[in-house]
């Protein structure tokens, strides 16, 4: 399981920084999906 270590906002995006099981960092940048937002 990844462990979330930081949550913040960036230019309308939600940024979630997590630590992988092997210690590497992974960062998710996401946004609430819009209709027809398929690409």
């Amino acid at each position, binding site marked *: 399981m990844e462990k979330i270590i930081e949550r913040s906002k960036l*230019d309308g*995006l939600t940024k979630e920084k997590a630590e992988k099981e092997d210690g590497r960092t992974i960062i*998710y*940048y*996401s946004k609430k999906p819009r209709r027809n937002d398929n690409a």
Partner: protein
Amino acid sequence: MPELRWNPILKRWNIISDKRQDRPVLPEDSCPLCPEVLEVPRDDYYVVTFENRFPSLERNPEEPNIAGDSFYRVRENRGVCEVILYSPEHDVSPAELRLERLEDLIAVWRDRFTELAGEDFIDYVYIFENRGREIGVTLDHPHGQLYAFPFIPPLARRSVESAESHYQETGACIFCRVLTKELNFGKRIIWEDENFVAFVPFYARLPYEVHLYPRRHFTTIAELNREETSSLAKGIKTILNKYKSLFPIDDFPYITSFHQAPVDGEDHSSYHFHLEFYSLQRAEDKIKYRAGVETGTSTFISSLSPEKMADDLQGVEVKAGETDEDG
């Protein structure tokens, strides 16, 4: 044996990284970059970045496996290599990303640049994308990469020094001078708006090489304003869609390369942020190889004139919708 080894003749660092030998190459059964396969357990993201499983540069490197001396210098390969996925979807190409998603991607590039630029062991942050098997990609999923170097790479150092010496001699920016020359000539411009200009440079060395310059002088992606971010997204999308339609082939191979001021703590205000795009596809069925002259002398021979390449790219109509919000 991960380490940096110094070439005392050419005065440049080479990276020795045998871990790269273990990378999967175009696996047929499943894509390790797709959600819930290997690297990314979630699919609810727009963009995701993570440290490369097979890094050339490592945040916490092992000791070099060989001892150096004052002539054959050796350093640990300390740095950061990140993978940046542009979408959870495997089959979408970067050219197909909506403008809003490209602007989000630019925000992520800026965020990663800013964070890594603040690390005291990083001197240069390089953002790039390899696309297409001819370029050497090992995974097809839409993605780019970032290398945060503990030194300024040779080509970047040379252009930084050129910018600085030109500024000392003339008080002006050498990149602004190139941009003015290209705008005055006009025939190599392939796209422009109020903030950015895309052109095949007078001195293009690779097939369908395009440079994308901001009109305003600034040094790094961190200084982009909102309007410039929107223009940069349009410029990238226009260039990639022209590439996509240039020849009737499935996946036009290209490299996107960011050129920015170093982050080594010195004053590099004479540098001018820009992007460069290169291909190896010199015709529908012809690839440009880096062979004896290019590899042995670093002199490039182009069988296409820059004017011909610009004319070809100008002739590609980017369809309505491919550069607007509904694309």
